[in-house]
């Protein structure tokens, strides 16, 4: 009969260690662990080591020997206590999965009681944890070494930030090392089951590079592909901007009781879209920068040219986004052009409303950047009726990093929206045969 592996909480682990070693130097995160929420009963307040060992079904020696990732089996400690204080912030703890019990994720009592883990899973898992723990420690030692290198370079120039280093060669060297550090910190935690569990339960703390990495990978797998596919199929590119390579996840929703982050290209009711949309910007990077959001409708009929023109609906600029806080604060940002609710004319077909996300240069406030001798006509830049998004982008020196899209057509609510916002009487278009030759 196989033994059924389960979880033990960090708190109980800490108490175990406190009981076993008087000088415990391993930091623990204050946040409740994955196991705590699953089964509060699993928290063992018992400090008597042998009692716990008996409950688990192993010897007390085994319990103290495992897992102590800072001390490899039969060797000197890889990380000293002094060093541990520094990388504590970047060390999400290894979950100690020791207590044997039925899996808490199975909600049905019947399944939980009849469930059997595969034979040999527990033993192999313990050995695997030991190996991965050792590997993680070596990676953190490398991180510390590299960090001290960067610190030495910074101290040499007497600065605190890498981008303040005046010497180009030294700065690029410091940047390269920092990239390496980021990579090592991701690799060190990528095999940690605790990390995966936290991430999949939506508890990711974006200050850790590994969570940012996982979030990016998850976004790249389907949502980004879907976005790009819709933008291409619905000809948002090149009808508005010529091309895109999205690096930032932009989410859009309209406030209300049933608000949801809709997927790009959805046809919405004009009543829903009459409200100012809410945004979320996931940069997957630990940096602070400013963004501009522009909403355009490229499907406004242009009879004079027998074509279509773009209408500007919204410009929100100077959106400050910190790496781990994705929500857009509209009040803290600048509304350059207030939101115009979509109100398609009858018989003018389905209108696309393209949301473009631009990164402002060098994290500065939105300002016109004069380049070359050609003068920019400021009056036409923000013209609602004849808006040129490409001109706007180049005038302000912006960089397109994300996009989104929704669609509207004339529906039963459109007249109400017109009335509510005072948009005047609509026109009804109809087709007419024209002699071409």
């Amino acid at each position, binding site marked *: 009969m196989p033994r059924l592996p389960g979880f033990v909480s960090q708190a109980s682990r800490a108490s175990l260690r406190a009981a076993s070693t008087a000088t415990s130097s391993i930091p623990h995160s204050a946040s409740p662990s994955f196991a705590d929420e699953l089964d509060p009963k699993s928290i063992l307040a018992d400090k008597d080591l042998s009692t716990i060992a008996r409950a688990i079904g192993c010897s007390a020696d085994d319990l103290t020997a495992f897992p102590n990732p800072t001390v490899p089996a039969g060797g000197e400690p890889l990380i000293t206590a002094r060093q541990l204080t520094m990388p504590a912030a970047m060390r999400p703890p290894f979950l100690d999965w020791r207590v044997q019990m039925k899996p808490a994720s199975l909600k049905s009592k019947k399944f939980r009681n009849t469930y059997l883990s*595969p034979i040999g899973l527990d033993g*192999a898992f313990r050995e695997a944890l030991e190996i991965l723990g050792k590997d993680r420690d070596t990676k953190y030692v490398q991180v510390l070494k590299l960090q001290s290198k960067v610190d030495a370079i910074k101290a040499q120039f007497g600065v605190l930030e890498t981008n303040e280093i005046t010497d180009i060669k030294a700065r690029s060297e410091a940047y390269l090392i920092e990239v390496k550090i980021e990579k090592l910190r991701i690799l060190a935690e990528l095999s940690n089951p605790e990390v995966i569990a936290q991430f999949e339960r939506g508890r990711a703390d974006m200050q850790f590079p590994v969570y940012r990495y996982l979030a990016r990978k998850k976004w790249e797998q389907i949502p980004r592909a879907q976005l790009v596919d819709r933008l291409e199929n619905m000809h948002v590119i090149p009808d508005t901007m010529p091309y895109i390579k999205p690096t930032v996840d932009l989410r859009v929703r309209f406030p209300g009781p049933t608000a949801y982050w809709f997927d790009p290209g959805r046809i919405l009711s004009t009543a829903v879209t009459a409200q100012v949309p809410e945004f979320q910007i996931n940069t997957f990077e630990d940096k602070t920068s400013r963004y501009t959001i522009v909403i355009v409708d490229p499907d406004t009929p242009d009879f004079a040219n027998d074509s279509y023109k773009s209408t500007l609906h919204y410009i929100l600029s100077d959106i400050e986004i910190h790496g781990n806080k994705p929500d857009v604060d509209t009040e803290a940002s600048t509304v350059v052009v207030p939101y115009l609710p979509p109100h398609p004319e009858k018989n003018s077909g389905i209108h696309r409303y393209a949301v473009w996300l631009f990164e402002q240069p060098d994290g500065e406030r939105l300002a016109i950047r004069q380049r070359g001798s050609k003068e920019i006509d400021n009056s036409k830049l923000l013209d609602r009726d004849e808006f040129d998004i490409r001109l706007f982008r180049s005038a302000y020196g912006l960089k397109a990093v994300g996009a989104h899209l929704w669609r509207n057509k004339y529906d039963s609510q459109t007249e109400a929206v017109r009335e509510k916002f005072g948009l005047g009487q609509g026109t009804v278009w109809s087709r007419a045969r024209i002699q071409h030759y």
Partner: protein
Amino acid sequence: MFFLRRSLATSATADALAIESDSGSPAKEFKIMSGVILSRPPIITPEQTAFSKAYYHYQSELYKRMSWTFPYWFYYPKGTLAENEYTRVQPKLNEKDPDVLFNRDRNSKQDVVFPPRSVQRETEESARIYAKIVPNPRTTIADEENNIRSLERKLDRTLYLIVKRDGESLEWSFPATTIESGENLESSSTRMLAQYGGEDMNIFLVSGTPALYYKDVYESDGKYEGAKIFYLKSRIFNGLFKPQKESGIVDYAWLTKEELSSYLDKQYWRKVAGALSKQ
């Protein structure tokens, strides 16, 4: 290095192949020598780590769980005596259980119990063939005694032969000799092995191409400035290395790569280690 000059001086002959050194006058020469890295390949598979043992156990249990039901109706055809014997020894499962099919619970692995083989155990040969196999232990007496001269030690590792030859300062090294006239690397090393260790070794010279080069510079003045040694690689499969009387071999040892590091001179080890296999 000092030791090689001393140890190899005995076999140096007047008509040895020699070349001039690059250092110019006074014209001194480097002796060209051939050597052999004689090794015994592993006889048993490498020792497994605790993790790989646990991993293979887990994987094989999963494999059994996912394996198909044993088709007993093919191996024990219906109506035969064999079928009776087979069904008799099987654990009986509840056939009304919908999870059970062909006497196998489809939620777990199947443990097939095979009936004892109906073999006439009269002859001595059949008794020997069908006797239960008892595997030999992976460690031998030579391992327990740590007999470094035995070829039966460390069966899962490659063992390398090093020798210690007569001279004032005794140092361990791979066997080497001076190339005599009319010889090439291959023939001189074959000759040397027979000279040093006797004829009764089943040896295979992997190639006439040298696998390792070592340049030895003599410290004291002499006829030669030093020696250039080219080592060939060879394997031993049977027989023993028995030091011959006139060869001047004082001691010899069969060692693994990491053991060699403590026996060989540091500088020599640094140059030589790259040509050896860890396992």
